[in-house]
């Protein structure tokens, strides 16, 4: 199987981009990108620095409006929606340069992200109320899974680097997304942390979460992703399974540069 064949809507594309472009004045940061992310899969987005990967994330999450094309999530057009609306549809993201809420505690920052369709009344009832305690319990469980249980009362800005990366993912998951966008989540991780991350992605995939992953570490990209899309200069230059991508001469030339990488 090559190209996008076999990943049509009927087969469960959760997210599909068609001819998406983003122009900053005269610069075309993203040009005519089409891709489909199948439900329940881990899809990798790779490419050299400046290839437009993060811009694609910004378009999907509504941080920037696309200037061309269409982006559909479970049949719903995303272009023109606000980031908060897109999140409530079921898309959550992390940021390449970690962005936590510096003055909030770990637990607070997860609670505030929780996807609750509560009434306005529940919004203003203090934390002692029963409903709020339930939410708090849920947030604490999530933090335990991410080994942040003991640090739940610390300020986000006081966390060590690896914990900050974990917390960003935990916060995104607290919104209960169907699609998780991870922007270089493994940057700066140690070998041990990389292992933990791989495990985590595997577990999340097993729970049915769809993941779109920007990754520079080729080992992680190859081992975690079911499918890879390669961008270069804002355009898609290849797509396929990790094996296909590894063997693709266009990718090797444009992205990897030399074979020993």
């Amino acid at each position, binding site marked *: 199987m090559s190209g996008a064949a076999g990943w049509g809507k009927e087969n469960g594309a959760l997210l599909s981009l068609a001819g998406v472009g983003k122009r900053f004045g005269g610069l075309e940061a993203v040009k005519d990108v089409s891709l489909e992310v199948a439900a329940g899969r881990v899809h990798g987005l790779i490419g050299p620095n400046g290839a437009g990967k993060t811009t694609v994330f910004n378009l999907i999450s509504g941080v920037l409006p696309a200037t061309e094309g269409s982006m559909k999530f479970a049949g719903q057009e995303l272009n023109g929606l606000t980031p*908060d609306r897109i999140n409530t549809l079921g898309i959550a993201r992390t940021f390449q340069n970690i962005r936590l809420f510096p003055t*909030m505690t770990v637990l607070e920052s997860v609670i505030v*992200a929780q996807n609750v369709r*509560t009434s306005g009344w529940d919004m203003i009832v203090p*934390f002692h109320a029963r409903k709020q305690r339930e939410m708090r319990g849920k947030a604490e469980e999530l933090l335990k899974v991410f080994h942040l249980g003991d640090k739940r009362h610390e300020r986000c800005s006081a966390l060590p680097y690896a914990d900050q990366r974990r917390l960003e993912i935990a916060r995104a998951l607290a919104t209960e997304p169907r699609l998780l966008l991870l922007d270089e989540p493994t940057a700066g991780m140690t070998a041990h942390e990389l292992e933990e991350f791989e495990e985590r992605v595997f577990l999340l995939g097993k729970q049915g979460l769809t993941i779109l992953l920007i990754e520079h570490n080729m080992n992680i990209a190859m081992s975690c992703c079911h499918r890879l899309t390669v961008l270069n200069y804002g355009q898609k230059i290849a797509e396929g399974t990790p094996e296909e991508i590894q063997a693709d001469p266009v990718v090797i030339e444009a992205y990897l540069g030399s074979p020993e990488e």
Partner: protein
Amino acid sequence: MGRKLLGYYELTILAFMGINILLGLSVYAILATNQLSVGNAGFMAIGAYISSFLTVQLNWPLEGALIVGALAAVLAGVVIGIPSLRLSGIYVVLATLGFGEMIRNFFNVYEPLGGPQGFRGAIGGTVGLIYFWVAICVLFLWLLGRSRLGLSFDAVKDDELVARTIGLPVTKIKVGAFMIGSFIAGIAGGLYAHYVSYIEPPNFDFVHSTIIILFVLLGGMETLWGAILGAAIFTILPEVTRFMKEWRLALYGAILVAIMILRPAGIIRKGDLKKWFRRKETPVRLQGEKT
């Protein structure tokens, strides 16, 4: 007959302190979503004039007039809040500054409410009534700070973009903050008018808005207690330094510079009260029940 515990002079200072606390809280509520409003004297003016008009001209009861005056200020808060959402940082400051001056000038030229002659006759404001409203507003903001909505305010303040990507309706939250702040400022204006019985447009000028902001900067902008402390200090300080005459102003400047150097976030920071009152190391909030 023993002399009264508090004379007229002390009572007036106490009343102004209460009004200043309300004004400090009104800036604090808006600042809690990272928007600096320099127009709160404008909201105060609306509350003052509308409520005075209602009690003096239409013989409304004071409480009803206060609330309607404050709601009129809220309306103005929404009108100014929505365009400010498209702006950020210094531009919000300029927009609210322009708004405040616009309101003041409106009352300066609008003759039915006295124009430059001012508006007199509003009576019935007492120290008790002022502190009743202080108590209500403090309680409300305190509860807000311990609610999910309060956390949303913090998230917006810390990082607006991220707040959006985790699904928070940032636009509504920011307009909501403007509404809360303008309501409190409107109440403060109504109480002021009914305490001093005479209001004129210069009471609500830009300098007044700036002084209100100083309450919060001095006391601390991270918690509502900071705004309260700042307002109290700025009310009492001019009185206790009266003997210094014009040198007072130099002293204020020196105090402000010192605070900004020593404690840039203000006298009270988030979590300070817990520390000072020596409960064990507890989180900033959410310390409610033991785990």
